[in-house]
């Protein structure tokens, strides 16, 4: 048992060591400041934060409905929302194309009526990232809402609070830790998004080429840059783990 466990630990640790060994530390800053790297960094930041914002904006009401409203087909809706968690991202990208491309279900109308084209645009990147990030927010906040002691909400109603006041002044603050965790989680997922983005939005430098896409491309042209950018994402991931340690790693 112990030996097998050690193999598993090594399996996780070795690639990280490799990444650090292969890093070209002397040119590290220069590698990060090439125009393409900088634009990928900037774009990744903007798109992942926008996708997180969308996830919070739409995920919060969705999580609340799933946790609090009994309606027929609730299990179906929850399954639908959670699907992107297990769906191969590239399939998600293809599915997004069929819905939002210029000839897609909704995309056709968006283009005809408003002249909006999501494919190969920065907005398309945000859409693709939100598609994969939203479930992380919803699942985390729904769990938070379900584990919350609802009697606090009852106490608020006996004090004269209307449903929206109860939500704003009691429910929301009490699930705030879950919301923060869900937002961090979906942000990390959006930041690393590759498959759906490249499929739906393409790989255009300055417009749709986010960090993971840039890393993939630089691996062929300039591996040092690819490793440097990978280290940036690794650092972000480690920060997320450390900041969420109380929640995920437990107090052992």
């Amino acid at each position, binding site marked *: 048992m112990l030996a097998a466990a050690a193999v598993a630990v090594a399996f996780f640790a070795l690639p990280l060591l490799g990444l650090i060994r292969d890093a070209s530390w002397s040119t590290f800053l220069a590698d990060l400041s090439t125009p393409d790297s900088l634009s990928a960094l900037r774009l990744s930041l903007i798109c992942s934060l926008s996708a997180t914002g969308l996830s919070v904006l739409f995920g919060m009401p969705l999580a609340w409905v799933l946790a609090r409203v009994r309606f027929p087909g609730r299990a179906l809706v929850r399954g639908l929302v959670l699907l992107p968690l297990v769906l191969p991202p590239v399939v998600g990208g293809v599915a997004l194309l069929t819905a939002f491309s210029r000839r897609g279900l909704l995309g056709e109308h968006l283009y005809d009526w408003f002249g909006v084209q999501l494919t190969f645009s920065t907005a398309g990147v945000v859409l693709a990232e939100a598609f994969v990030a939203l479930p992380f927010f919803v699942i985390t906040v729904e769990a938070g809402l379900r584990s919350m002691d609802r*009697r606090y909400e009852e*106490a*608020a109603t*006996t*004090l*004269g*609070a*209307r449903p929206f006041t109860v939500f704003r002044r009691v429910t929301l603050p009490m699930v705030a830790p879950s919301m923060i965790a869900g937002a961090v989680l979906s942000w990390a997922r959006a930041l690393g998004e590759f498959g759906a983005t490249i499929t739906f939005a393409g790989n255009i430098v300055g417009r749709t080429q986010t960090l993971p896409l840039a890393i993939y491309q630089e691996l062929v042209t300039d591996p040092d840059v690819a490793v440097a950018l990978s280290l940036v994402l690794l650092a972000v991931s480690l920060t997320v783990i450390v900041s969420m340690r109380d929640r995920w790693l437990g107090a052992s």
Partner: protein
Amino acid sequence: MLAADIGLTIGSLDLSVELEVDRGEVLALLGPNGAGKTTALRALAGLEQLDRGSIVLAGTVLDDPTTPTFVPPADRPVGVVFQDYLLFPHLSVLDNVAFGPRCRGVPKTTAEITARRWVDSVGLGSLAGSRPAELSGGQAQRAALARALAADPQLLLLDEPLAALDAGTRSTVRRDLKRHLDQFDGATVLITHDPLDALALADRVVVLEAGRVTQAGTLADVTTRPRTPYVAELLGVNLLRGHGSDHTVVVSDDGVRSDVTVAVGGPVDGDTLALIRPNAVSLHRSPPDTSARNQWRCTIDGFDLLGDRVRVRLTGPVDLVAEITPESVSRLGLIEGAEVWASVKATEIATYSA
């Protein structure tokens, strides 16, 4: 002021209880766990809807399934102090207390002035900025009371307000609670399973068992004339039920007559309750040579220490509790399982019709 006929069925609980509480009066709803006390309170607060009956507070119908009328909890002038207080953990004590006035449309600064007054009046002035997690049990209880009263209710509901406190804080908090209830001019319903709380805080008692009222009245009524084994046990007295004629009561258990006859002081007729105070029961190691007309051979089941008295639990023709001094226990050499004779004078047994 409050006239409630609460009828509702939830799972295995079939609740049917009538309550009338006047302005300034405190009614204690006393009963064992699972009797439906909390459900009754939730119905008064509007957290459960009635199936039958009605709730009328100060002339306003709050719930009546026949019309149908249902005023939601947010619109009821009802304040609740929950058993575990349920203070909002993310708000300071002051903001918790200001919550009610704020929800009822009072401007922020006015609400804070009101809240400050209540926080001061329950003695938490120095803790106004603290979070509930920083409060002791007694302080949290006061904060919850202030929060309920700050919303200016006409009906105050208290669910086991002292149950979560340790014995030390309990008596102080009980005394302070008494002071606030005295000043409160609305109706108060207090849920408790502790007769001491009822004794200290309430004007009248309604005893609820398995969803039904088994006894109601002033505390004096209930303590001098308990009507059910539950009440008798709460009060620590012996209660026998039976059929009376002339100066004897034939004890019956659930309507089945036993061959135990109890001689009582006054003339009795029909279904009768006989109350024997534990200190009226004398214990002897051999058949007693006394004038007491009731003598039973019993076995000692166990002992409980109560202050400077020992309560001896006996099983025999009738199950009894005797209260004697520790000296008597050692003088008689009483041990668990020992056989003793219990005697009770007929004149020491109070009787009333069942």
